[in-house]
């Protein structure tokens, strides 16, 4: 199936949300969803609605904070921002992720060579 989305490792979406908030500052749900769609080339989000479970979870873990505010188009929307604990978590997770990616890369490399 050409249109299939990447299977997300658990927590990956959370990591992306944290990273987006870190780099772009406070965002509302729609903004976050659009941003992740754009930066991942539409390959990550099944649909935009999926992001809300992640947002609730991150709030529960106190890694992001939420506040109702007014959008640039004068609409009431809930804005999310990363917290200090969130930044720490993001740093840790990014490191983990890079290590994991490196390991996976090393493991898969010979196999690719072998099948050639």
């Amino acid at each position, binding site marked *: 199936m050409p249109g299939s989305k990447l299977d997300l490792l658990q927590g990956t979406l959370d990591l992306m949300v944290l990273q987006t908030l870190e780099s772009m500052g406070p965002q*509302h*749900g*729609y*903004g976050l*969803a*659009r941003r992740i769609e754009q930066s991942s080339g539409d390959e990550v989000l*099944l*649909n*935009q*609605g*999926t992001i*809300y*479970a992640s*947002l*609730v*979870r991150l*709030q*529960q*873990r*106190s*890694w992001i904070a939420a506040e109702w505010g007014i*959008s640039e*188009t004068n*609409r*009431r*929307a*809930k804005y999310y921002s990363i917290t200090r*604990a969130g930044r720490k*978590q993001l740093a840790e997770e990014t490191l983990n992720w890079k290590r994991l990616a490196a390991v996976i890369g090393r493991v898969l490399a010979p196999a690719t060579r072998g099948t050639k």
Partner: protein
Amino acid sequence: MTGPVREQWERTLGLVRGRRVDRDLEAELDAHIELAIEDNLRRGMSQEEAHRQAARQFGSRLSASEQAGDQRGFPALESFLKDLAYAVRGMRRNPGFTAVAVAMLALGIGINTTVFTVMNAILFRGFPLVERNDRILYLTTGSNCCVSWPDFRDWRSQAKSFEGMELVHGVTLTFTDENGFPERYDATEVTSGTFRLVGQTPILGRDFALADETPGARPVAILSYGLWERRFGKDPAVIGRTVRMNAAVTTVIGVMPQGFTFPQKQDLWVPLIPTPEVRKRENRATWFVFGRMAEGVTVESARAEMETIGRRLGEAYPLTNRGRNLIPHVLNFGEFFIGPNATLIYKAMWGAVGFVLLIACANLANLTLARAMGRSREISLRIALGAGRWRIVRQLLIESILLSGMGACLGWWLAKWGVRALAPNGSAISDATPGDWFANVLGYSMDYRVLAYFIAISIGTGLLFGLAPALRLSKLDFNSVLKDGGLGATGGKRGKRLSTVLVIGEMALAIVLLSGAGVMIHSFLNAYGGNLGFRPDNILTALINLPTARYPQVEAQTSFFDRLKTRLEAIPGVESVAIAKQVPGWDTALLPYELDGARSASVAGSAAEDDERHHPMLSALVIGPGYFHTLGASLLSGREFNDFDGALAVPAVIVNQRFADRHWPHQNPLGQRLRLFKDAAPEAWLTVVGVAPNIAQNDSARQERDLLVYLPYLQRPSGDMWVMARTRVPPGAIANSFRREVQALDPQLPVSLGPIPLTERAAPSYRYRGFTAALFLIFAAIALGLASVGLYAVVAHSVSRRTQEIGIRMAIGATARDIRRLVLSQGVFPVGIGLVVGLLASLAVNRVLKSGLIQVSPADPLTLGLASVTLILAAVVGCLIPANRATRVDPIVALRHD
């Protein structure tokens, strides 16, 4: 607090906050859509396109809010709680069903837990306060006796399977403290390492040391907690105090912990002193050895090693081993104390109650199935509306586990009550004749093993009876159910097949239990109803042990019993008095013998009795004059012993009928001669002066009597005799006069045992056997009851479903008899198949019981026949009730029946 821990806390809060947060989320989602639409419009889409794209990109609004909602609270818990509430509502709507189900489960779980508790105490736990009871083995030769001190020393030094081995010996001591008041106590002579081996130390004073068991050492004793409490009021100053035991001045050196008793119930322990008499290899008294298995050793390997050692010793000491089978028996706790069949009988009983529980499960499965089939419309609707099948299965399982949980609570209570009723007889569930002390020793508390078992069967039961109907229902073809407006045709048929199989299973289990109980009862009746050969009623009996210290001379002993007899016979209400070494029914000595003249010794005795010995064995009992008269037995020929069969007279013997028939079938036994062997040396020839009827001796439960001879007391005097008095009044009434006469002769002499009626002395073995049989019968009756209720339920259910059909049949002229036959025919099939399967199974199962049966074949046709008839009768009753109800169906009403 951040991270996952915080998340759990927030989830918990979410459970409470609920609605308010939901509204917040809904508003946020609304905003999201609006923002998306605006964005799309900005990118130049049409109004309509913008809406469409926004909705598409967002995906399912419902699932988004559900996923986010699930993140708050615990979705699994919430849906479980919802299912639970639903199950409780369902149960309250159907109180009749609930009550029946809970009652059946309580019964099944209750008796299982009860039996397990008793079994646990006896098979798994053993003596309280003994470390790793399961690693302790008991070693004897012969039947629970006969180990000599040198045997023990050799065993201990040669056996590698044991960490340690000790020798013990039960004795009775007369204990006199400074107040001069004599009392008899049960004591155990032990080698000095005994307490260390079982892992206990005295709470006061010191343990036995090696020095205590050297000959000539200062006599010492360790008291049991009970004796210390009773006799010394828990006075710590008891250590070092001297008391007189059998006249020897003995120092108390220790007190054992409360509740500790080993290897039997005793009041005190003394060291076993290897006197020259004890050191003789041929002196094989009633000692036994126990040992703790070394690490990694199994009972089997220990047994194999001990047999090798026993054989080696037999070759090394042929003289003292002659005529004896001295291969060591290695037994575990249950085998030693409760008899070789202990494990078998307990496991059989466990199996029986397991069957009862299975039948209860099958019944409930059927009831649940019937009820669930009635709900198939509701369930189909739920499946059609998108409930997963797992969700349906889970719902039904929650219902059944809830039921089994309620049953379990009631069952636990029932089991507590059952254990109280059973525990005093707990050790009685055996075919051996355990000492009365045994019952008071074991702890029947419901420990962690019982709890684990209880929880396991409670949950297991719920799963077992819930799973079949649940899986069955989850496969419902909901389309056809909904279309037909009733049961799917296939669903109904398959459900019915399942319930028929369940009923067949119940019937089969019931017949296995019935026939098992039947052969046990038949065996009990054989033992109890057997001709005892004498009249056991109205005999008062007591054991007198004359202390050798004060009655050293044989003459003093015989004269004591002679005077006692005269005094007792003078009591009003006493008819006659006699003495004997043992009362009927109990064990006597086994001795090798040979007949005069024909070398019939080699032909005599069965192969088992003869095995490797040179001489066959007989049982011998020393009796005084008037023994048979007092027992109410009349000799078949010849005469009783009298006062003239003394040391100077011709050695005389009375043989029992079996002995006479075996050896002199065509001759007059009177005047024949035989002789016994003592330590392989022949004794003087004995002349037969009488033939007695077969009177139970040794195993009272066995129908086939031993070869038994009676020897005159005056030719084999002893200071330890049973005194028996035949009374004209109830024997208990003269017990006090009896005791007074003994005191009158010797104020310092306690009566060792009794006086008690002979029936009580002989009764335990019957009572125990009867008790076991009665328990099995109770279990079988419960099983039968449950099974016929099950059949009733199935037939009644099918009648209610066929009301319309029955109405039509009656409308077109079927008579009540036709209808009854129609309904009864429904029961014939499952009962018939169940009967056949059950009978076949019971042939296999009963074979397991074989070694516990007396003169009953495991496939006893009478028992199997009776069991079948009972089952059929119960089944007919179960079918007739709904059948009769069917005949009263009003056709008009029935035709309107939906």
